[in-house]
């Protein structure tokens, strides 16, 4: 009898644990919750959110020295690389007030309904920000009514954020990795380097289960996935591509599709708009978000917090967006029509102008003979 109850309890525990982990993925999002929408301004092509710094007009942000009490630092990264924050008075170094970008943690498979959650002290999590050059950058986590991660992007290129949450259930270690690829580029800084985005970096020493979006040939920093385009996502485990991994793609309105990675570890996903907004609301900068989730269980002996586990279950999420197809808002036919009309109109205009204006010696026109 006790054995049955034990099994049921274990079963229920496993079931719910499994459900929790299988169904409610945790992912990183760039869009603010409604309560924070006013405090935040979005910028750039990828709509990265940042604190609206109007209140901090002209005042340099001195980091934690002056306003340290407001922010409770839960966990920061050990190595602090990045720009030293000097005060304006003392420092002679050129000072650039940097923008603090924000990301939120959401839980749930549905993009529209996923909740914004906070991570409490009991959860074992680690938040890493990797710069394009491969440096670990500093991240603060701000606990307010809503928690968010705050960081600076000082280099130009793709940054990767990794939120790793580990949880042990039974003899399996559940590792939930929420990843985000952020592009930091502003045309006003010029295009010093070749515009082509560099190949994607992976960090096998830090993150062993990874999924990347393969760059298209000749892709540059102005590239944005658009509806109708195909993207290739590659799953990498232990530094090598992994086949047979189940990847689920969820779009905003709830459409989802499951893929399995092929022998190169890749899946081909074609993004198609799943809803069409009203004509007046359509704009060329609208982003439709999607969330990719990869699940993978492997038999691996691992030691975690004093105990041994024989299975590891990885769940990797990555959320990004795609734009409406160019043909939705840009018409080349109309463009050509406008161009041709203007051409004909200006030629006609010149003729009429020449005829109308009094050109006194126009009555004499020479016959250009080629004698």
């Amino acid at each position: 009898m006790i054995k049955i109850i034990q099994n049921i309890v274990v079963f229920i525990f496993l079931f719910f644990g499994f459900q929790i982990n299988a169904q409610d993925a945790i992912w990183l999002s760039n869009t603010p919750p409604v309560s924070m929408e006013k405090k935040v301004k979005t910028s750039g092509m990828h709509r990265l959110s940042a604190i609206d710094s109007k209140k901090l007009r002209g005042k340099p942000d001195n980091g934690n020295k002056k306003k340290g009490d407001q922010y409770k630092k839960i966990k920061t990264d050990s190595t602090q690389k990045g720009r030293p924050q000097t005060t304006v008075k003392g420092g002679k170094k050129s000072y650039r007030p940097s923008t603090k970008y924000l990301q939120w943690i959401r839980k749930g498979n549905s993009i529209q309904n996923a909740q914004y959650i906070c991570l409490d002290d009991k959860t074992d999590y680690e938040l890493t920000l990797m710069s394009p050059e491969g440096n670990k950058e500093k991240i603060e986590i701000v606990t307010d009514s809503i928690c968010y991660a705050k960081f600076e992007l000082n280099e130009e290129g793709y940054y990767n954020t990794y939120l790793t949450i580990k949880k042990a259930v039974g003899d399996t270690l559940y590792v939930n990795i929420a990843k985000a690829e952020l592009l930091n580029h502003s045309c006003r800084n010029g295009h010093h380097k070749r515009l082509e985005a560099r190949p994607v970096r992976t960090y096998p020493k830090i993150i062993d289960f990874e999924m990347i979006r393969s760059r298209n040939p000749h892709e540059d920093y102005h590239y944005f996935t658009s509806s109708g385009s195909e993207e290739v996502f590659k799953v990498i485990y232990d530094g090598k591509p992994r086949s047979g991994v189940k990847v689920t793609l969820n779009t905003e309105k709830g459409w989802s599709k499951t893929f399995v990675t092929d022998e190169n570890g890749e899946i081909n996903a074609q993004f198609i708009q799943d809803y069409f907004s009203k004509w007046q609301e359509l704009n060329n900068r609208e982003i439709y978000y999607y969330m990719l989730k990869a699940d993978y269980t492997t038999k691996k002996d691992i030691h975690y917090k004093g105990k041994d586990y024989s299975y590891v279950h990885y769940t990797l999420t990555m959320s990004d967006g795609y734009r409406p197809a160019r043909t939705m808002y840009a018409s080349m036919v109309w463009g050509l029509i406008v161009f041709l009309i203007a051409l004909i109109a200006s030629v006609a205009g010149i003729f009429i102008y020449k005829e109308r204006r009094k050109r006194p010696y126009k009555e004499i026109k020479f016959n250009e003979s080629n004698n």
Partner: protein
Amino acid sequence: MINATDQDRYNRLKKTSTIHYNMEVNKVLSEIIDDFPDTLSGMEYFYNKFKPLEAGESIYPKGKKLIASMCIHVPVELIYALDAIPVRICSGAYSADTAGSDFLPAKICPMVKSTLGALYLDMLPGNANPDLIINPTTCDQKKKMGEMGEEIGKEFYVLEVPPSKDSEEARQYWQRTVKKLVKKLEKVTGNKLSRRKLKRSIKAVAQAQSEFRRFMRLRKNAPVIFGKDALLVTNSYFFDDISNWTEKLSILNDELEERIEKEATVTGPRTPRILLTGSPSIFPNMRTPILLEKLGGVIVYEEFCSSSRMISDTVAVDEWFLYDMVPAVADRYLKPSTCPNFTPNDDRIRKILLAMEDYKVDGVVYQTFTGCQLYDMESRKISKELEKFGYPVLNIELDYNPKDSGQLTTRLEAFLESLKENKRKK
């Protein structure tokens, strides 16, 4: 039109005038050639161009129309392009001057009277018989001369020259006039203006200009040629075939270059260098230059419309099509012109000042013909400007009458003396 007695009178007048003209020509030629030592061999050709009138056919080739013109504002390139021959009939003959006095008041420009007389008596050099006479409305005298055409039995074509050259309107007006001229010339010659021909004629005239500029460049040094000879060279441009003229001038230039190298100058180093300006000296009215040089000066630059002004300025064409070539030619005959009939005429002062520097001129002789109001009026302004810079100026007034030489000689002598003094002081 003319009855029998008038005809007799005309014939007699013509005969006497011809005789007088020939005497004049011979006298002047002998003065120019014989009274000066050391003639240049290259000048032979140019001396031979100036001959006394002989009865007979015109020397100009038949089959081509002869277009006569006065003034430097008639575009020569257009005439050449239409296979016609341009002849400038501004006359310097005193004999024709007396004949012309019948038509115009005595006290007006002798050059105009002389030209009128020459036309009336058919005494043009080379027995020219022009098919068209172009009369530009530059100075008052020329304007009114055109009205005498009917009386003397010749037809004038009026070329309207604007009284100013600075404004946009003047430029447009002039371009329109030139286009009308082209139409008239096409009618007279029976040819059509074609691109290739106009291009060729522009380049031919450019060759002439190039040689002439070289000639003037050579005169900047120690003098190897007298001003009287230079004036003959430019005067022959009035009626000579342009490519022959260019060729012979080129030979003359080579000779001058040799002379410069050998330092065979025609005068000493202390001879005052003179700039001659004002009403133009036209053969055979060469009194001023001959006297000046006989009395010990040397003319290095003449700012005459019978000399440098006629040939110096150039035509620059951007696109070699008629729509650009004709306006380019027209522009050349208007914009750089320093003829006093344009107002304002600051360009003339600047040109003279530049020449003073470039040619190391010691003094300026400004001659005005009696009745030439324009040059007379400008003389004051120019004298003042030159005196500001410390250059001595002599203003003389004369007409074609050769008997007036006495006073002229005295004045020129005095002037040259003072110039020599200045030179010695320096």
